[in-house]
């Protein structure tokens, strides 16, 4: 899959302190990438580099084949005292951004819907829980159409319920084709949603797929369908094609892995095309030692 942001040999230091040493990594499109590492390891610095808020000393940061990427940035510190309602607040921020009012009101309406905050649109933010304040902070980052949402420690300080809600929110953002990069201390919390984990340690990074999360929630599907039916549009979705082979003159068989959340959708798309299900089973769960060290 095409990366939305690509870092190549990026070096960053503050005065004499080296934070990132020739780091290369890519942020895949429409996925959730988590950056983990100890305090002071450079997670926030990496996020700011990705979002173009600070400049690298050396190396290159490439964005999706020339196409401009629209960033939303959620800072580490969630403001605690905002003397407005979400609608007032987002209107102020949007106006300061220079957005046209009519469009802005429409957008705020949409955001309140995505974040399940419609009932709280006219209540003062000061009375909100930490989790709801966090949501408002994410909404302000998405006032304009967003391709890549950058979140610094979105889970810190949230109770379990709010964390679960945040997970669901991330899934719904992913479904809206928004790529997400976030930092956190513990990956365990986000295993259901994170696709890729980047570990920073001593100025270097290790980039891995979240196998555990993937295997935990993946299904293996096998369909049989008419050869002439096109399934190109399905292939572009969140599926991993394992094999495709012809069966006789008219039929073909296709095997693919799909995450649990997408299974229903993919199955129904195949059925719409006249395919028949030959197999549907959950993929084997396997504990990966690697993740447990965090």
């Amino acid at each position, binding site marked *: 899959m095409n990366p939305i942001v690509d870092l190549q040999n990026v070096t960053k230091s503050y005065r004499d302190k080296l934070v990132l040493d020739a780091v290369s990594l890519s942020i895949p499109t429409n996925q959730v990438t988590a950056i983990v590492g100890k305090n002071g390891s450079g997670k926030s610095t990496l996020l*700011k580099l990705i979002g173009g*808020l*600070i400049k690298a000393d050396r190396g290159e940061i490439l964005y999706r084949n020339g196409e401009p990427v629209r960033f939303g*940035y959620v*800072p580490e*510190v*969630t*403001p*605690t*005292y*905002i*003397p*407005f309602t979400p609608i007032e607040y987002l209107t*102020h*921020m*949007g*106006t*300061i*951004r*220079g957005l046209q009012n009519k469009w802005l009101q429409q957008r705020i309406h949409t955001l309140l819907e995505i974040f399940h905050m419609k009932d709280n649109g006219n209540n003062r933010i000061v009375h909100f829980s930490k989790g709801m304040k966090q949501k408002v*902070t994410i909404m*302000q980052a998405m*006032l304009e159409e967003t391709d890549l949402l950058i979140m610094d420690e979105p889970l810190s300080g949230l109770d379990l319920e709010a964390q679960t809600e945040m997970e669901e929110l991330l899934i719904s953002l992913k479904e809206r084709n928004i790529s997400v990069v976030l930092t956190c201390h513990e990956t365990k919390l986000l295993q259901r949603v994170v696709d890729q984990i980047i570990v920073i340690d001593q100025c270097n990074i290790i980039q891995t797929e979240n196998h555990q999360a993937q295997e935990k929630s993946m299904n293996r599907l096998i369909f049989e369908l008419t050869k002439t039916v096109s399934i190109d549009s399905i292939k572009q979705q969140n599926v991993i094609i394992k094999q495709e082979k012809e069966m006789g003159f008219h039929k073909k068989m296709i095997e693919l892995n799909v995450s649990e959340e997408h299974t229903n959708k993919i199955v129904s798309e195949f059925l719409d095309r006249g395919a028949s299900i030959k197999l549907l089973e959950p993929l084997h769960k396997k504990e990966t030692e690697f993740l447990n060290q965090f």
Partner: protein
Amino acid sequence: MKGLVHYHFTTYFRTYKYVPPFSVFIMMLVINYTYVPNPILDSYSYTSIMLFFIMGWFTITIFHAEDEGQKQITIMHAKNKKVYYISLILNCTLTALVLCIVAVAYPVVFNAFTPGLHSIHLVMGFLAHFSLAVLSIALSSFFTRGLVKNNVNSWWGVISILIGSLVISVEKVEVLKIKLINWVLPPLRYSMEIMSVDDQSISFPVKVYGQFAWIFIYSLIVITIFIAVMEKRKAL
């Protein structure tokens, strides 16, 4: 810019941080004009120096009204630190304007002056208040949280520089004899000199307007330096 000024204003209004300085300001006017009649220019000179101090209070509270974390977000939306700080300064100036009008109008409305009030007195009164208020904004801005991390230091800093400026102006300190330093120090004393003339004189030389203008220009230079320094700061 308009959006930002409006946002800063509403934020300040909703935090109620203006209540203490505003109350003190009104109280001060009431006390000052309890006994009538009062000399005109003398009274204006006195309340303008009071405003000079109270404006420092307003400036700090206006700059600190917004949540610290929110400040980063607002600057990001404004895409420009300069605009952000200009908006704050504008809010301070608008507040100053309102206070000046109140300070000039109050004794007139309540008939607290000796007879012989002339419109030129009002003009001079307004200029004295407004010039010192703007000067106070300029000097105080250097002690807001962008440059001074500790809140207590902000207050000490503002009080020190405002008192310092006043002392230098009142006591004709030795250093004033050196021309160059004279230009660098806050030109508080011009206003005080102008306002120390007799109430009978209703014609002021052109030089007077030049001196007021210098106070404004001086303040503008200080504000420009402040904004330039803030822009240079990288912290985000």
